[in-house]
């Protein structure tokens, strides 16, 4: 039963990882940008929510509704002001630009909030859980996070496959110049992609911050997990990202069940095994997204 519990917790944890990862996957799929600041953006969102709750009377839900649009706008501005110009120079310069952004965010947060750990207070929800059987109970927050991940991935998939903007986003990913000839302003399309990526990773950051404590320096670990989820699942496939997140979460909780020291190692080993034996990922991409 203990192992069944570990499996359930691992799969639910995978939802959080998928939520972290889908923006990373989208930015890479559309613009070939590996956003090294991805994890720090999530942490920044958590701190912004923390301050919003401290200085106003809004609760966690209100803060979330404020933070997400702010980060969408932030993403659009970062893309059109910093990343699109860097893209013209070459792929290496976008890597350097996002690395720089990562350092700036981490240090600004250290300066502003000190290195102390904090948590987003969700009241009694933090410990409330659904009892399934004797040894298995799942936290409502984990369930909510998993549900949000599925909703976000389905919405993103529908956006990319059905909407006119999503279609031109995939077209721009294939061939930016040909998309321009159909009337697409690549800079605007890229801005929308990054806006979505920042909003989703901000949501992931908030869900994480409700369940665990956070500090300015944890961003790179979040980036690593997101990166592993994307690679395990398969680049360019949103369902792959969910599967990748769940496999990573499963590996970590099963590793922890065996011996807590193996938590992270188990995830990394799965990641390396996929890279070695199935580099295209568990779910091969049917189309670039």
């Amino acid at each position, binding site marked *: 039963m203990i192992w069944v519990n570990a499996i359930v917790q691992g799969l639910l944890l995978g939802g959080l990882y998928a939520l972290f990862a889908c923006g990373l996957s989208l930015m890479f799929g559309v613009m070939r940008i590996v956003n090294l600041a991805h994890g720090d953006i999530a942490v920044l969102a958590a701190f912004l929510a923390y301050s919003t709750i401290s200085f106003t009377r809004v609760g966690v839900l209100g803060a979330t509704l404020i933070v997400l649009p702010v980060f969408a706008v932030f993403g659009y501005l970062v893309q059109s002001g910093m990343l699109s110009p860097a893209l013209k120079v070459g792929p290496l310069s976008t890597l350097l630009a996002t690395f720089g952004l990562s350092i700036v965010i981490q240090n600004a947060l250290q300066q502003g909030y000190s290195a102390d750990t904090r948590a987003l207070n969700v009241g009694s929800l933090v410990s409330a859980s659904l009892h399934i059987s004797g040894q298995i109970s799942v936290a409502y927050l984990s369930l909510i996070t998993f549900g949000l991940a599925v909703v976000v991935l389905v919405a993103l998939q529908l956006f990319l496959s059905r909407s006119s903007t999503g279609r031109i986003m*995939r077209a721009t990913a294939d*061939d930016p110049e040909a998309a321009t*000839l159909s009337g697409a302003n690549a800079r605007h399309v890229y801005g929308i992609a990054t806006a979505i990526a920042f909003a989703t990773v901000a949501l992931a950051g908030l869900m994480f911050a409700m369940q665990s404590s956070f500090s300015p320096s944890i961003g790179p670990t979040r980036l690593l997990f997101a990166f592993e989820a994307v690679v395990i699942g398969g680049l360019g496939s949103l369902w792959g990202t969910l599967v990748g997140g769940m496999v990573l979460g499963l590996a970590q909780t099963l590793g922890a069940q065996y011996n807590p020291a193996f938590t992270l190692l188990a995830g990394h080993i799965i990641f390396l095994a996929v890279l070695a034996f199935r580099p295209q990922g568990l779910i091969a991409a049917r189309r670039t997204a």
Partner: protein
Amino acid sequence: MNLLSLADLTVRHGQLTAVNALSLDLAEGSTLAVIGANGAGKTTLLRAIAGTLPPATGTITFDGHDITRTPAHRRAANGIRLVPEGRRLFASLTVEENLLAGAYRRRSGPWNVGAVVELFPWIGERRRQSARLLSGGEQQAAAIGRALMGNPRLLLLDEISLGLSPVAVQQLYQAMPNILATGTTVLLVEQDVSQALRVADRVLCLLEGRTVLTGAPAELTTAQIEKAYFGLSGSHT
């Protein structure tokens, strides 16, 4: 009224002057074929008009507006559509999605998926297939369809016969009268001179970025065209 006017247009690729002080006027509803050997500047000319290659000097006027500095995506939205060399379909999209992508910023007009399917009936049964599964001729037809989806006032066709079988070329050109019937102005670039002469009402021969011969197909003799095409006469008109 002239839909498109180029005045003294010069376009450079680094040190190379691909289009050299070219001027031309294109009346609305007309069809101009630009012919010339490889490297004569034909593709460069189309890219400058579409806006993907900025000219060094000169002006481009479209529908009475100076669009020399207008970005390519805005020109496309305003009715200048280029079918680029090499087709450039969106490989991860289906055939229908390629057409719909062409309608992303469209003018109002007669073209939609149904009208394109009527023009190229085979698209109907293959609309859900990936664009990368199409043959060369089908890709070219889909690329033309994608451009038409924007209801262009000016359609720029770059070497649509390149690399295709004679049958495929013939099928594409059979569709031309239907495209022209909607009143679209067409500027086409061809190496296949006989096809170009058949559809165009005016021909312009480029040599090293300059106009060396221009006229209606009926007025030009084969010898004149050959001379101009290969640059044998050296007499610039």
